[in-house]
């Protein structure tokens, strides 16, 4: 065993782990060192000091993501009992379990930033915080389940893959696991769609009808164009790509795969501009996006009400767990 006296130099433990922006510095110097670290590609761990601006921005981003995972299972959950085969039912149940698991992981990341989970649920139910637009719509047919699992998850994974590089290290690490699981959801969704496309005329029509309904929300999902230089989340490297970059990436991968199946994309202006090296499309309905994410979408209130009822119905579980004194080892 090593002789501890042989160590050199002996530093106070907090100093050993101290970041350059230590607490002896004046606030603005500390802020500048932190900013240089993060914008230079450095990572931040939960115990590190961070300016309120950064903490708030990460929290806001992660909380919205967590809310979306939690609310996102509701449209799919409605189809578990109506899945056409046992294998589909198992796969859909597993997907719903995965998404709730993602919410768990992400709420943990958010909690470490200082906001208690119960408060996050309060804010979600009170409409003070948001969840993604695509989860405010109804699921009308089995084809919706295929389109959601394939394309909504694909649009999400495009964003999430970029988040594996986030400056907030716990978020980046969580995204590794999430992306791994999402990739299976995409396979499941694509398999559902391809199977339907090889079915009857009415099944093909059902897929086309679902795509027609979901295309608008999918194009809105990443949000309006933003100015790279003014985007606070990009500046802090919380995320790595602008909404337009994500949308372009999504179109590049998935338009050919939709056309391959003989599906029609419901946008007469959609085309790839070779000279510019990017997709042209009809400007998404940003008014619809705003309406929907402020909880005025077709299913917003019903889904929030489901969470409210569910939260009350399961309160006894949380109370039971918290009431028991912890066993002393």
């Amino acid at each position, binding site marked *: *065993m090593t002789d501890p006296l042989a160590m050199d130099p002996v*530093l*106070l433990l907090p100093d050993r782990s101290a970041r350059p922006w230590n607490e002896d510095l004046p606030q603005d110097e500390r802020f500048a060192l932190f900013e240089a670290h993060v914008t230079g590609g450095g990572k931040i761990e939960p115990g590190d000091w961070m300016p309120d601006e950064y903490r708030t921005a990460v929290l806001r981003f992660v909380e919205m993501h967590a809310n979306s995972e939690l609310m996102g299972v509701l449209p799919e959950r409605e189809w578990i009992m109506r899945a056409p085969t046992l294998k589909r039912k198992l796969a859909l149940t597993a997907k719903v379990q995965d998404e709730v698991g993602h919410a768990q992981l992400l709420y943990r990341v958010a909690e470490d930033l200082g906001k208690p989970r119960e408060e996050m649920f309060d804010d979600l139910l009170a409409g003070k915080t948001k969840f993604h637009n695509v989860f405010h719509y109804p699921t009308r047919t089995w084809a919706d389940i295929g389109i959601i699992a394939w394309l909504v998850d694909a649009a999400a994974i495009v964003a999430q893959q970029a988040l594996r590089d986030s400056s907030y290290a716990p978020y980046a690490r969580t995204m590794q696991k999430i992306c791994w699981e999402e990739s*299976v959801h995409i*396979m499941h969704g694509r398999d559902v769609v391809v199977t339907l496309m090889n079915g009857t005329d009415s099944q093909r029509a059902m897929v086309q009808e679902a795509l027609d309904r979901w295309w608008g929300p999918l194009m809105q999902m990443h949000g309006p164009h933003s100015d790279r230089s003014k985007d606070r989340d990009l500046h802090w490297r919380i995320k790595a790509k602008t909404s337009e970059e994500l949308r372009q990436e999504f179109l590049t991968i998935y338009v050919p795969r939709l056309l391959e*199946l003989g599906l029609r994309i419901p946008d007469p202006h959609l085309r790839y501009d070779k000279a510019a090296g990017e997709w042209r499309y009809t400007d998404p309905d940003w008014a619809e996006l705003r309406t929907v994410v402020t909880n005025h979408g077709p299913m917003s209130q019903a889904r929030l009400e489901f969470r409210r009822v569910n939260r009350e119905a399961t309160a006894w579980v949380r109370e039971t767990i918290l009431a028991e004194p912890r066993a002393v080892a």
Partner: protein
Amino acid sequence: MTDNGDRMIDEGGPVAPVAEATGILEPYEVFRQEKDGEPMRHGGNVMAPDAELALHYAREMFSRRGESVRLWVVRRADIGVLDDLDLLQPPLDRSFKKPGGYLMRDKLAAARGRAGTSKPKARQ
């Protein structure tokens, strides 16, 4: 980093409260982070009479060449272990949870044949 060599080490730090030394050595598992942002990975273990010395030993063993940026040192007795494969890898078909559970090549070829389309070119 500042040199505070004249100050005592027991002024505080990540190990709080400092466990009473018992005179009995116990194994402590050491997890190390190689680079900023990387996950904590198991590095090995050290024997120590208390949590504070365990931290010093871990530093000597697992970062004396500066190969770690962070260490987590946990008393082995405090680690909960689950290694029952019946629970962790239940012997049922879970292929629907894995990419290999979805073999689409033939289905895609059939769909292309019907739609009269061709396979999309591989992305650059």
